[in-house]
């Protein structure tokens, strides 16, 4: 271990900064040292602007010295998935298409972190344009799971999860379109929150599927996730789909709410395909809630079996439209082969996009093409309604739902790359929440016999993140899974 500061929580680091036991510059240097010591094996970072990081840290220290600290995140390093724009920093989205792109503006979430005084720390690896479940679709590198470097960290926000799990940064941001925060959090043994659709502005989040995409935080603890959420949540005029809703003090709420809650267990999430060690750990977590006096009720989400099919129509349809902007004309890779303006499109896109992105553009284009629209896209939107109604029906009876996050622990690199459909099925427990717009958090709930982390997914009601995080916090406080870290 290169530093005593690695693996400390953001809340602990925040206290040490406040007590002047450590400076923001020392903390940034400790994180940089941990990256240098471990990232040769983990490959979480696509780029790291050391001078900029230290400059931000010096500004934080100067604010503190002047008595102008901006809050608990001031001086705390936060890593960002390379799909969230930060002015004057790269924004590759894991794609050759944007290999040289430097963002001319800040995402609203990035601006929220800056206003909170956080030190924006590096650009984290991801599946190209957030399409994938293993981070193997990055055009630049494959990220390793810190618990076993022969395995994938999950995806698409694999770099964001691995960086926190490896103690490189205390917290990070990712994005979640079908499970891309919760699944890597589960596979890397940390906490990851996908907020309600509309809680966080998508302005400056490079679009994959606009009706599903949502930014969210990773951390070692629920409290850290709550602190980070605070800095980025809220309505934004620059995103017309962001919601006007009251933003509570998420961290303070954790301490106020203690249950007992009525918790639902959807029977469709415990069928075939669920690994026995995952089932055992999740059932133990459910038993713990019952022992605390929570009422546990079996519920049914009968349209669950359609979720993946609906997702891969809606997400790819939206992606084929969103990714039309990468035309080789304005700000992307431009093919030198092209001779005329139309040719530029065909060749620049052929050279700039990787195989999974091409596959999804083809699928999305097909399902939207003339004659097929109603049969695929129209029908998928209707089944989406049924999936959403399933959840709303369940929430008439219960406060939240308990499920596995991922059907298995982290799989081996290369295991699923040959079969895209098999990779898609890895998202089976997370994908419905995006379709229904609901918040979900993954919290560590055990380890497999070979020592790989297992996550519990808790599904909350729209915009009730405070309650959702309280339910997760209660479990975390009574267990020590979050205090375990990989041997690096």
């Amino acid at each position, binding site marked *: 271990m290169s530093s005593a500061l690695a693996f400390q929580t953001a809340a602990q680091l925040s206290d040490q900064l406040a007590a002047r036991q450590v400076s923001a510059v020392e903390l940034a240097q400790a994180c940089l040292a941990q990256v240098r010591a471990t990232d040769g094996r983990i490959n979480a970072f696509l780029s790291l602007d050391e001078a900029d990081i230290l400059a931000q840290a010096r500004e934080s220290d100067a604010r503190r010295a002047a008595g102008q600290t901006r809050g608990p995140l001031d001086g705390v390093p936060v890593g960002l998935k390379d799909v969230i724009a930060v002015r004057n920093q790269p924004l590759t989205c894991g794609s050759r298409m944007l290999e040289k792109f430097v963002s*001319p*503006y800040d995402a609203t979430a990035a601006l929220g972190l800056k206003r909170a005084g956080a030190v924006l720390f590096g650009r984290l690896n991801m599946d190209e344009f957030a399409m994938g479940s293993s981070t193997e679709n990055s055009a630049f590198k494959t990220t390793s799971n810190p618990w076993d470097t022969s395995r994938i960290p999950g995806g698409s926000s694999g770099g964001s999860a691995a960086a926190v799990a490896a103690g490189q940064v205390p917290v990070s941001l990712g994005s979640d379109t079908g499970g891309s925060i919760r699944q890597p959090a589960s596979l890397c043994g940390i906490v990851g929150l996908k907020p309600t*659709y*509309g809680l966080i502005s998508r302005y400056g989040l490079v679009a994959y599927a606009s*009706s599903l995409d949502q930014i969210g935080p990773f951390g070692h603890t629920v409290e850290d996730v709550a602190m980070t959420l605070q800095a980025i949540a809220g309505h934004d005029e620059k995103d*017309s789909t962001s*919601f006007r809703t009251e933003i509570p003090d998420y961290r303070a709420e954790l301490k106020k709410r203690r249950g007992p809650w009525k918790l639902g267990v959807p029977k469709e999430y415990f069928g075939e395909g669920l690994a026995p060690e995952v089932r055992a750990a999740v059932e133990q977590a459910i038993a713990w809630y019952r022992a605390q006096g929570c009422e546990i009720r079996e519920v049914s989400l009968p349209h669950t*079996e*359609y979720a*993946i*099919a*609906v997702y*891969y*129509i809606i997400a790819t349809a939206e992606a*084929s439209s969103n990714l039309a902007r990468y035309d*080789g004309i*304005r*700000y*992307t*890779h*431009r093919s030198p082969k*092209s*001779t*005329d*303006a*139309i040719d*530029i*499109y*065909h*060749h620049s*896109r*052929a050279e700039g*996009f990787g195989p999974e992105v*091409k*596959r999804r*553009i*083809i*699928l999305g*284009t*097909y399902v939207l*093409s003339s*004659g*097929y629209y109603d049969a*695929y896209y*129209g*029908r*998928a*939107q*209707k*089944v*989406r*309604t*049924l999936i*959403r109604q399933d959840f709303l029906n369940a929430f008439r009876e219960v406060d939240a739902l308990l499920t596995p996050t991922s059907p298995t622990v982290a799989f081996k690199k290369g295991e699923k790359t040959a079969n*895209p*459909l098999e990779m*898609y099925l890895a998202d089976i427990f997370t994908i419905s929440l995006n*379709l229904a*717009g609901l918040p979900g958090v993954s919290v560590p709930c055990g380890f497999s016999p070979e020592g790989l982390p297992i996550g519990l997914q808790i599904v909350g009601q*729209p915009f009730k993140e405070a309650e959702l995080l309280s339910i997760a916090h209660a479990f975390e406080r009574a267990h020590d899974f979050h205090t375990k870290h990989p041997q690096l």
Partner: protein
Amino acid sequence: MPDTPNNIDIDYVANLARLALSPEEKATYARQLGDVLAYIEKLKQADVSSVEPTAHAFDVHNVWAADVPAPGLSVEDALRNAPAQRDNMIAVPKVVE
């Protein structure tokens, strides 16, 4: 749903997507697209006869904003990532003769 998943006109779809594909890519994507479409067929079983479509999880309609001018990107920022530029404009091959 309309056609069987194994008669996909991959050239037609690739052209709509403005995506040049190699013969190998065409074969691979046509096959994998067929697999995924076969999987998607299961949606036929869902009864959607009296169901409204969901475009977004929460209804947000007609969000209005005051039409007030505000500073945008500078010319330098807007052109910073352009693959080719000339005289503060993005340069492209000749479009019309």
